């Protein structure tokens, strides 16, 4: 009876598979003396991959340093991370795995607004407070969820820097572009209003899609609008593509701001001399005079053999805040920790952490404008933190 054998085989296979799944749902261990486990997923692969490694190392450094000082609440700290490949459904499952299977005590937020939007739901359902060290758009925080907190500057804040610089130099017309996804859209959302307040005009405003193959057409259109400045909410690959297209079209407006892409270290490698003069928003810089920053940079370089970038810094700062919240709560009581995260203010390597207790939106950190020159980036805004004055106008292509 061939059929019966086949059925039995099937049943056996299916049963075995599911047993494996359920069997691997671990048994919770007792708390005392055991390490405190912090869980997170990192985007080591996928669309936003450049930052993944740095982000992980930022976490690792904090855990290492904290353990050397005796850990948290007298217990050692362990880090448990997975790679979510920048995919929301994978991240959801990984966080559930961290919570249900690995029984982590605390969690920290993933990268990218899109992934965080889905994971936030999981955090909320499990009543586990979560700081998102890398989500700058405010949309995920405006859904009435009480468990998530923003560990980085607000996106809409990003363009005010370059616009102020432009205003100071008498520039009037703006061309706006950026990737048509959640975070960049938040960045450019307020441009029209801000322009009006500053007496400037937006002469071009069009976004390009994620994964666009070619930027020549949009650059051509911008060139025709003849703007004084270009503001683009771009990530790394698109900022490189845009800059190249601008060079090839011989388009050199007086001020070039390309979002968060330029602050990635490889922007400089990929563009060489062409990067000079390009501005971007950084949430942090190695020379920033924030609490513990100089030591952080030294320690990072000593441990990992290369200087940190802002992903490492913001993730490190997130754990600084979480650690402090746990200390002040005096225990791993999630509700107490949650309340602390909502109300505490403290200095970190990123600046002064403070959130809106109702939404969790970041209010203390200020964003910086960084500008490339000769293979290095310098803070040019705000004035109090600037290392040097902004170098405008943007040099013509022929003169490089």
């Amino acid at each position, binding site marked *: *009876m*061939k*059929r*019966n*054998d*086949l*059925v*039995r*085989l*099937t*049943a056996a*296979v*299916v*049963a075995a*598979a*599911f047993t*494996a*799944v*359920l069997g691997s*749902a671990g048994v919770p261990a007792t708390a005392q003396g055991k390490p405190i486990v912090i869980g997170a997923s990192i985007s*080591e*692969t996928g*669309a936003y991959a450049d930052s993944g490694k740095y982000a992980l190392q930022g976490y690792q450094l904090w855990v290492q340093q904290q353990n050397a000082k005796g850990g948290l609440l007298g217990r050692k700290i362990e880090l448990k991370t*997975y*790679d979510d*490949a920048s*995919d*929301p*459904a*994978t991240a*959801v*499952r*990984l966080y*559930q*795995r961290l*919570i*249900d*299977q690995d029984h982590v005590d605390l969690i920290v937020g993933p990268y990218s607004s*899109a992934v965080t*939007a*889905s994971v*936030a*739901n*999981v955090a*909320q*359902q*499990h009543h586990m407070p979560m700081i998102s060290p890398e989500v700058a758009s405010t*949309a995920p925080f405006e*859904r*009435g*969820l009480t468990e998530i907190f923003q560990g980085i500057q607000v996106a809409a804040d990003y363009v005010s820097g370059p616009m102020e610089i432009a205003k100071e130099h008498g520039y009037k017309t703006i061309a706006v572009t950026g*990737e*048509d*996804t*959640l975070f960049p*859209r938040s960045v450019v959302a307020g441009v029209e209003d801000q322009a009006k307040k500053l007496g400037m005009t937006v002469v071009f405003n069009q*976004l390009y*899609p*994620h*994964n666009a193959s070619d930027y020549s057409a949009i650059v051509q259109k911008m060139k025709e609008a003849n703007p004084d400045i270009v503001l683009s909410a771009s990530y790394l690959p698109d900022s490189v593509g845009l800059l190249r297209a601008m060079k090839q079209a011989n388009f050199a407006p007086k001020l070039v701001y390309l979002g968060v892409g330029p602050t990635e270290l490889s922007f400089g490698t990929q563009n060489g001399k062409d990067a000079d003069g390009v501005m971007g928003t950084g949430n942090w810089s190695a020379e920033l005079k924030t609490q513990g920053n100089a030591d952080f940079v030294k320690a990072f370089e000593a441990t990992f053999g290369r200087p940190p970038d802002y992903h490492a810094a913001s993730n490190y700062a997130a754990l600084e805040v979480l650690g402090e919240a746990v200390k002040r709560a005096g225990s791993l009581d999630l509700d107490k920790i949650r309340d602390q995260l909502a109300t505490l203010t403290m200095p970190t390597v990123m600046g002064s952490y403070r959130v809106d207790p109702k939404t969790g939106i970041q209010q203390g950190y200020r964003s910086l404008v960084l500008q490339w020159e000769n293979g290095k980036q310098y803070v040019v805004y705000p004035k109090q933190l600037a290392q040097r004055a902004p170098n405008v106008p943007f040099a013509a292509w022929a003169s490089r």
Partner: protein
Amino acid sequence: MKRATVAGFVLVVAALALIPPFASGYVRSLLYITVLDVALAYAWNVISGYAGYLSFGQVTFFGLGAYTTALVVIHGHVAWWEGALLGGALSALLAVPLGYLMLRLRGAYFALGMLGLAQTFQVIANASGFSGGGSGLFLPPGSNTLAVYYWTLAIAVLTFVATVFIDRSAFGLRLQALREDEQVASTLGVDVTTAKVMAFVISAIVPGLLGGGYAWYLTYIEPVSAFATRFDLQAVAMTILGGIGTVWGPLIGGVLMSQVSETLAAQFPQTYLMIFGGLVVVLLLFLPRGIVPAVSAALARRRARA
């Protein structure tokens, strides 16, 4: 079907239905994704396995279902499953003209044409303000994985039952005939166009219904993940592994592949892709028709020798 087979199947479904309420959120999610992938594999099996039209674009309807549900939930304030039903209906409706158009293509052209269709839909979702564009759509938070899971399980079971019917029915015979040689089948009087369009509609309505559940599960959708090629590739891999054009193929292939994927991905994130890809290649070289036919053949040989 032999009673033992039916009994075995009922047992499996019962287990799948009874475990989740007692399991953790992680196990529920895992089961959900597994059942989702298996259901999509079964749907894919109809147009690609039985009818022989290999499609790499069924995610077109999955994304359509996801967006339809998201939009009616947000603007129409209806329940998510009502949105999902609407998504399925819309997919079925669109599948008719799309089917008539696309099924004029053959072989790799059809496969790639469907891939192109999925990309086109993704770009449309990305471009139109109505669908939230690149920012996507936020659904009300607080979704219940359990409800979505049962919805998906129900559809998976129905799709399986439909496959059994197709396998045994005259309709299924017509599909297999046109798969073997469409011209000959047509000459012999088989209405190949109607048959293949019907198969296409079935393969579209299932993803359409399931997409809505997915949107609710994630509470947020955007073009890239709603129309991800991953869904088609998983369905393809699972079905071919298990046995394309068979009744049990997608189930066996699906269960095996999702378990392997999940374990590998969690433990070895860097090398998981290499292992997964290598596994697919190795299995294909040694089991090109899939596990189920290979096992059946082995069993048949054993019987013959006895």
